[in-house]
């Protein structure tokens, strides 16, 4: 029973129309959460006892870093599904993820760098967290480069998917780097259920930004996915109706 649902997801025309219908349901809440989170983080949250107002960079840095990891997981899992089930739509999802993930990885690295300079005293250090995040960027760029290097879409799909899947080992490394090894970057403040490392006034805007960016990613993915699917469906009959509006 569940498999019919799964295989329906593999149907390009179904996904195309579903994506179109779902997009506003992600886009608008994303905008509301991000705007609310920005106000909460920039205006309402008190300054930090150590970092003063400089800590507010967290409201763009942490969501960007979260995006870089979450988007990679989505990309790698869809790539794996595409490899195993030979599903075009899954490969289309992976391909749509890559530019989004790469841009947020750059954002995480640069905002982190800007935050590091006043607080640590340096724009960059080869510590485990920063180094593995940089490797993530290379994985994204490698994935995109591999795709564009191959003429045949199927071969592009398959080889880039292998890279995406292999690179998934980097994700737990990035997350646990600060607890497994001595590092300059501090331990996670949010991903722990025990004692929260910040009061509600600081935490709530951060959670809003994290959720808002996640919904934003889904909305962008849905739009990209439609474009990706259209460009792959050369002669399908459903396209005539889909693009005539």
């Amino acid at each position, binding site marked *: 029973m569940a498999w019919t649902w799964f295989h329906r997801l593999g149907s390009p025309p179904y996904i195309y129309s579903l994506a179109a219908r779902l997009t506003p349901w992600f886009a608008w809440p994303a905008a509301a959460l*991000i705007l609310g989170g920005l106000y909460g983080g*920039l*205006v309402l949250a008190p*300054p930090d006892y150590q*970092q*003063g*107002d*400089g800590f*507010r*960079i967290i409201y*763009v*840095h942490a*969501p*960007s870093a979260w995006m870089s990891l979450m988007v990679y997981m989505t990309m790698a899992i869809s790539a794996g599904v595409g490899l195993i089930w030979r599903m075009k739509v899954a490969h289309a999802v992976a391909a749509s993820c890559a*530019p*989004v993930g790469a*841009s*947020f990885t*750059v*954002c995480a690295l*640069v*905002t982190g760098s*800007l*935050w590091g*300079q*006043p607080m640590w005293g340096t724009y960059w250090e080869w510590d485990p967290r920063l180094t593995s995040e940089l490797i993530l960027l290379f994985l994204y760029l490698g994935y995109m480069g591999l795709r564009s290097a191959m003429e045949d879409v199927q071969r592009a799909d398959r080889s880039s998917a292998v890279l995406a899947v292999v690179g998934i080992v980097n994700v737990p490394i990035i997350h646990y780097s600060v607890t497994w090894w001595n590092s300059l970057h501090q331990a996670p403040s949010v991903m722990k259920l025990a004692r929260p490392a910040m009061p509600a006034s600081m935490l709530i805007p951060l959670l809003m930004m994290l959720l808002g960016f996640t919904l*934003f990613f889904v909305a*962008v993915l849905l*739009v*990209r996915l*439609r*474009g*990706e699917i*259209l*460009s792959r*469906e*050369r002669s399908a009959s459903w*396209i*005539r109706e*889909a*693009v*005539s509006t």
Partner: protein
Amino acid sequence: MSEFFDMGGYAAYVWPSYGLTLIVVVLNIVWARRLLTRSREEARRRLAMRGGGDT
């Protein structure tokens, strides 16, 4: 108000960070929409060629 922009002396680090993030967000929106528009146009062109090209 100027205190807000000063960000406790960290303005030079805070505002470029927010600015870059805004750029990345807008870029993603624009890029995604352009990709979709272009794919739709290409699809229409392909259909038109096939439809009107073999009479």
